[in-house]
């Protein structure tokens, strides 16, 4: 079976991994309560979307 000829140095390995970055999700603010929420989704904090109440949000869940 073909195998790597040389061991990859720590430097090479770490250099490759500099590009492994997690991106933060794009957030928007809720028009009703002002908290951060994912765009185009019902606000998890207050249950509003598009200027009207869609769902009742239960407290302390």
């Amino acid at each position: 079976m073909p195998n790597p000829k040389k061991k990859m140095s720590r430097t090479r390995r770490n250099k490759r991994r500099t590009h492994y970055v997690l991106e933060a999700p794009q957030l928007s603010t809720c028009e009703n309560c002002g908290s951060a929420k994912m765009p185009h989704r019902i606000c998890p904090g207050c249950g509003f979307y598009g200027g009207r109440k869609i769902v009742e949000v239960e407290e302390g869940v």
Partner: protein
Amino acid sequence: MRHRKLNTRLSRTTKHRKATVSNIMRGLFTSERVVTTVKKAKVTSRYADKVITLAKQNDLSAIRQVEAIFQDKNLVHKLFHEIGPRFTDRNGGYTRVLRYKVRRGDGTEMAILELTEKEIMSPEERAPKTKSAKKKTPEKTVAESKSSAVEQQTAVTKPVVIDEEQSDIDALAQAASDEEIESPEDTTDEEEEKSSE
């Protein structure tokens, strides 16, 4: 040619997919609002719109076409006598898909699938009836909608009614969320039965 018109297979065979969609539709037409995955909601929405179009035609042919989808005469009756007439002023866009939350367990994005003309409508929704669902102005804040509701109220009574108005909204929302808790279980249970077969 109808090549590549199929939106998605939903990881199901044709029969299974048909059953899934009609089960979700059944839940939608009985309780006006269901919670499913975004994908299922969007697929079902297309079919539900077609069913409502048939319900608006209201002739024998249409009734038979709908009966082929639902084996429930009471539901067909409701479709032709309650839901169909509700949409006479609306040309298309009978259902709405709202992204809701992420399901615990598998991280699937869930959505609320609902009828755009509901039996119980919140006062805010009832007031701007001329507006179609698509033309919703994003600038419209809650304060504005509240004030318009208050204006309507003041025409009849004094502005002390705001609290009642608010509690009305809460009650409606509560009722809606109650429905929601029941309906998604219905659909998921049935789906599980189907898949275990």
